[in-house]
């Protein structure tokens, strides 16, 4: 049965010549979710996004947006906001004129429904009337985001949207995306800024060498390997955990223990502590997305 998810990639495979860019990529993004698409350079993130918005034809598999097949210039794309492969505008026209022409190219009457909100996000002020060729990288990026938002889309496909933005602009973008998802929108966002994705995403898909190596809720992906325990007897807890197979390291700081045990679940660790007679006050995963990411794709791949 065809997926009704806001974004659905089903067994997507795409090769360029002999190079297989992606193979069997499958994931879904539901409404209300912000899904980070992560992976080292060449992992297939942009290819996946291109296929999802019809800019590349898959050799196999299907791409769907809002339950409808997505192909080049498919009607469903009118309900999507897309920023892919960086900003691109007609350089000798103003930012305002570029937005107008981009909107009218789709056969619609100016102005678009979410123009004010998108211009607020762009924050270009008077520069909106200046020629785009005079814009900085950050200004072009913000104009591109305004273009993606102005049609009040139901789904956003954003490839590296924070490139060239300063910290304040990144924060504004984050707030807009959260608000968009809270209103039922779906976001698929690729980024190299893992800390930003960690702050923003509800879900993640990790690609490596063209294949999905992990997918799911962000908290599930982070919760594999590193934990912090608050205990009442540090010495006993350290001894119990160090005696446990699969526990790589245990470090104590006051009444807190930092534990690294990729092959153990938090439940197993907690059980070991309780069995040893240690009182456990609180437990939380402490692995950063960066650590989780490096663990998933392999440090060598990520460092390449």
């Amino acid at each position, binding site marked *: 049965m065809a997926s009704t998810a806001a974004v659905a990639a089903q067994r997507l495979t795409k090769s360029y010549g002999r190079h297989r860019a992606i193979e069997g990529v499958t994931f879904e993004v539901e409404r209300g979710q912000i899904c980070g698409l992560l992976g080292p350079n060449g992992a297939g993130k942009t290819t996946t996004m291109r296929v999802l918005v*019809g800019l*590349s034809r898959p050799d196999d598999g299907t791409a769907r947006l809002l339950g409808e097949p997505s192909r080049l210039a498919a009607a469903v794309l009118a309900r*999507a906001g897309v920023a892919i492969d960086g900003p691109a505008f*007609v350089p000798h026209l103003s930012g305002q004129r570029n937005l107008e022409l981009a909107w*009218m*190219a789709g056969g619609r009457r100016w102005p678009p429904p979410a123009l004010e909100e998108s211009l607020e996000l762009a924050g270009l002020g008077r520069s909106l009337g200046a020629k785009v060729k005079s814009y900085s990288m950050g200004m072009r990026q913000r104009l591109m985001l305004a*273009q993606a938002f102005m049609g009040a889309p139901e789904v956003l496909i954003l490839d590296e949207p924070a490139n060239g933005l300063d910290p304040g602009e990144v924060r504004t973008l984050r707030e807009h995306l959260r608000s968009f998802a809270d209103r039922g929108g779906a976001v698929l966002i690729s980024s190299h800024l893992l800390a930003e994705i960690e702050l923003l995403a509800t879900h993640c898909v990790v690609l490596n060498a063209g294949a999905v190596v992990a997918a799911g809720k962000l908290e599930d992906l982070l919760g594999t390997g590193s934990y912090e325990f608050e205990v009442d007897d540090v010495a006993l807890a350290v001894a119990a955990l160090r005696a446990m197979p699969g526990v790589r390291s245990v470090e104590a700081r006051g009444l807190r223990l930092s534990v690294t045990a990729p092959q153990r679940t938090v439940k197993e660790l907690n059980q070991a502590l309780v069995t040893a007679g240690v009182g456990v006050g609180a437990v939380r995963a402490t692995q950063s997305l960066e650590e989780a990411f490096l663990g998933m794709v392999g440090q060598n791949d990520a460092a390449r």
Partner: protein
Amino acid sequence: MLRVELATQLRRVRSLILLGVLAGIPVLAGVTEASKAGGRGGAATFSALNFAESGLNFMDPVLFGLIIAVFGSILGGADRDWGTLRYLYVRPVSRRRLMAGKWWALVICSALAIATFLVVTLLTGVAVFGWHPFHRGGTGDMSPATATWAILGAGGYLTICLLSIGSIALALGLLLPRSVEALGISVAFVVGSALLDNVPSLHAIIVILPVHYWLRWTQLFDGGGGGLVAGLVAQLATVVVVLTAAYAILSRRDPAA
């Protein structure tokens, strides 16, 4: 899409320079002729209508061909050069709509080029040589009204002729990685065709080249015009074949390629 194409292309400095060149050539020729010491010479100086006819003869085929090749190649390739093509596809704009918009923009550019040239030529001619009957040497003069219709007919015919080269440049602009490559090949085609047209032994090749028919508008000033139909058929056939082929290739090609 037509509105988008026109808004995008006609404000370009490149387009304005081309239209300026088209307007500047007759003004320069008229001023040069008017300032000649010792009287004027040549058929072009008999009247504004003769001046316009001579102007068309001067521009056709190479200079008009070069100008429309520039328009065609930038219409076809500018979106790719700027990177905006992907954003048009996701608006969404289908390939069919995209090509239709570019084609009609080319028609307008072609008409605008010819109209600009003719209007400026006639105005300059009136100012420098006056409005008199069209002088035809031994066969008697043509009345201003008849000659005006002949000029308009020639302009219309040339507008359609330019569409053949314009379409070739447009198609190449759509298919090649950069519009400058499309321009180079189109210009080579125009110049090569014009050169081949002077080699009678290559008649079998020459007759299938659209440029071969471009000077047939002169028949309108000789009281004829029967050869124009073949010329129009050749231009329209070129347009249909080239654009159909370009659409077929684009449809089979991966958009990301």
